[in-house]
């Protein structure tokens, strides 16, 4: 196995691993500061922040010969016998010099810069910069101009790492960004009349190591040190990008992609990134209601579960529509609860919202047309329990021929998703429970209107289009008056205390073979591939 020497420590790397100096030093627990290098982009080695000493150890004599000059760690491959020194005085001096140079032209407007608190320039300056200033630095206001509808450029804060330029060339493929001028006058810019306008434009803000690119949606809204980050999964489409939900006091401020090599790498699309606005929509349903003789009347959640239970138990034929916005655990809990009352209950895959066609980028990133996170998971729960899979449209058409005593429709959709004609088919059902985030024709015909949780409020797991199960916990609490599906179904299943999604997932893995790979395994940051067992079975 190839052995690399990092600061005198021997690090073994895999036979076919292609690592650079920064990555191999990270394995030795040494952080090499860098601006321009990003694992998802090509190497330009232009920022010079990752300069390290390198050399070779002779395989036979064991003699180490070092190179006289410092080299960029990002551009130096780690092979058998490569030596890296990342903590010598020479290296530290070089870093301090780079930091000093960057700061000479920097506005130092950290108090009003949105990046302050998560800024590499700030962090590296504290860690690697000089203790005293040799130049007379004065704060000034950075020039700023919008690059497009989503991003504002703060010209003077830029350190010219060109990550954003490379992103638009290599990942999103539209190449809107470029570097204009030369030397100390270099600036990032767009060509006049061609703004930064692609479906992944928000990523350049995450890539920017300093505060030069600001997300116009987030700009000035919140300081980053107030924000708490929660691991979650994007509910925008069936790709299921790993994300962080960043919130403060139960209010989402932004979504950020989280690295997951098995799903999308480091990126997410703008649709997902800004697709959380419905969570704080004032029009959201927040009051459970029962249809009475004189219109709808408010009900308390505390009485509701008992009332629903009584009503359902007096019904003969029950159907439950499981929305693809539910987590696997929620779908399973509702299904098992209904099946316990009516062993022949019908389970239906809820309406699957689609929009346009799948859109793929050159690097393989795909925005899927299916705008729900968990179709696969809910499908497999239904197949696992009943062996058949009626869709929403089948079910709505079938209603004319077959009658049900009770139908429970789950939702969680971002918009009003059904029309009057479909909703009319449900008007004859004696007990129609509709659980949704927004009002719709179907909602207006419900016997019970139950407000539903939005994605950052849910707890459980989604299965994406490629059968990867990703678990997550709630990031914010639901607004007053909303009980999450998980908690309601937990209560209906006569379980005490708070909803624990992990214990339900264990039940799911026992009951449904499709989920077997998740049995007793920690989901981890990257999720579990459920196909593994299927392939083994074949």
């Amino acid at each position: 196995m190839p052995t690399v020497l990092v600061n005198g420590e021997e690090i073994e790397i895999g036979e076919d691993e292609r690592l650079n100096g920064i990555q191999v030093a990270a394995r030795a627990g040494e952080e090499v500061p860098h601006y321009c290098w990003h694992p998802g982009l090509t190497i330009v080695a232009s920022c010079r922040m990752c300069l390290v000493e390198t050399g070779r150890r002779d395989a036979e004599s064991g003699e180490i010969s070092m190179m006289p000059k410092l080299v960029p760690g990002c551009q130096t491959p780690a092979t058998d016998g490569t030596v890296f020194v990342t903590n010598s005085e020479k290296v530290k001096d070089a870093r301090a010099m780079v930091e000093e140079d960057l700061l000479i032209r920097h506005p130092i407007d950290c108090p009003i810069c949105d990046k302050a608190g998560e800024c590499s320039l700030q962090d590296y300056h504290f860690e690697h910069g000089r203790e005293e200033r040799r130049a007379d630095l004065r704060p000034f206001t950075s020039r700023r101009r919008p690059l497009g509808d989503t991003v504002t450029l703060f010209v003077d804060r830029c350190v010219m790492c060109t990550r954003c330029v490379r992103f638009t060339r290599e990942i999103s493929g539209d190449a809107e960004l470029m570097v204009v001028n030369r030397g100390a006058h270099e600036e990032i810019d767009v060509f006049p009349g061609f703004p930064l306008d692609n479906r992944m434009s928000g990523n350049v803000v995450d890539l920017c190591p300093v505060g030069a690119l600001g997300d116009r949606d987030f700009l000035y809204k919140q300081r980053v040190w107030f924000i708490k980050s929660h691991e979650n999964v994007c509910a925008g489409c069936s790709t299921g990008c790993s994300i962080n939900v960043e919130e403060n006091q139960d209010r989402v401020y932004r979504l950020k992609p989280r690295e997951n090599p098995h799903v999308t790498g480091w990126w997410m699309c703008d649709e997902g990134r800004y697709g959380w606005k419905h969570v704080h929509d004032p029009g959201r349903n927040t009051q459970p209601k029962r249809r009475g003789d004189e219109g709808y009347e408010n009900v308390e959640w505390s009485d509701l579960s008992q009332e629903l239970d009584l009503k359902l138990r007096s019904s003969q034929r029950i159907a439950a529509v499981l929305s693809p916005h539910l987590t696997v655990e929620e779908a399973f809990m509702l299904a098992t609860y209904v099946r316990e009352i009516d062993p022949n209950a019908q389970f239906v895959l809820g309406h699957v919202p689609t929009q346009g066609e799948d859109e793929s980028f050159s690097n393989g990133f795909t925005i899927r047309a299916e705008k729900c996170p968990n179709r696969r998971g809910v499908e497999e729960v239904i197949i696992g329990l009943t062996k058949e899979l009626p869709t929403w449209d089948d079910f709505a058409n079938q209603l004319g021929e077959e009658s049900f005593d009770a139908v429970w429709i789950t939702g969680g959709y971002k918009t009003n998703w059904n029309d009057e004609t479909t909703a009319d088919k449900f008007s004859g059902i004696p007990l129609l429970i509709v659980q949704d985030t927004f009002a719709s024709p179907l909602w207006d015909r419900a016997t019970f209107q139950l407000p539903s949780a939005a994605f950052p409020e849910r707890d459980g797991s989604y299965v994406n289009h490629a059968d990867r199960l990703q678990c997550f916990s709630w990031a914010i609490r639901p607004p007053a008056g909303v009980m999450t599906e998980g908690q309601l179904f937990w209560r209906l299943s006569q379980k005490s205390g708070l909803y624990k999604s992990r214990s339900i997932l264990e039940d799911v893995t026992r009951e449904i073979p499709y989920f077997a790979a998740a049995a007793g395994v920690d989901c981890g940051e990257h999720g579990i591939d459920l196909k593994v067992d299927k392939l083994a079975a074949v």
Partner: protein
Amino acid sequence: MTPNDPNITWVEEPRLGLSGKMYMPMFVQGLTTTFKHLKGSLQGKAVTVSYPDQEPEIGNPIIYRGVHRLNKDSQGRVKCVACFLCATACPAHCIDIIGIESPWEDREKYPESFTIDELRCIYCGMCEEACPVDAIELTSLYNLTGRSREEMVFDKEKLLSVYDATKDKEPMRSPEMGGTV
């Protein structure tokens, strides 16, 4: 820091003698002060102040920690840049700011709304300390009253009006005093 840290010097309380144990010296000392003030007030030199008929004297109004004010710059605009550092430093969480893009060329960000809950504030002066542009300052106004809790939540306009009311008596911290322009 642990109790056995070599940098810590542990000091024992001095043992009391017989007179100390009888509390007599301290007792007499205390009464002496009382009688001194009694004598003074009989001669018309009372240490108490007949508030509110008489205003107490404040030592140095520049360093007194009373009601907050939001300073204005030379063009009469609010000096605050909505950086949230005062809100971050505030141990009582009484400052609430909403920042937006400023309408002026030379400024990037300014507070659309700036409220301080004067009832929640503990007047520690940390906000003043944290401010990078000397926009928030504590004045020597101490007699703060209101008829409702809502009235005691000061908004931007009210805090700016405190500046107008106090700027002559208490000048803004100038660059000579270590402040910013």
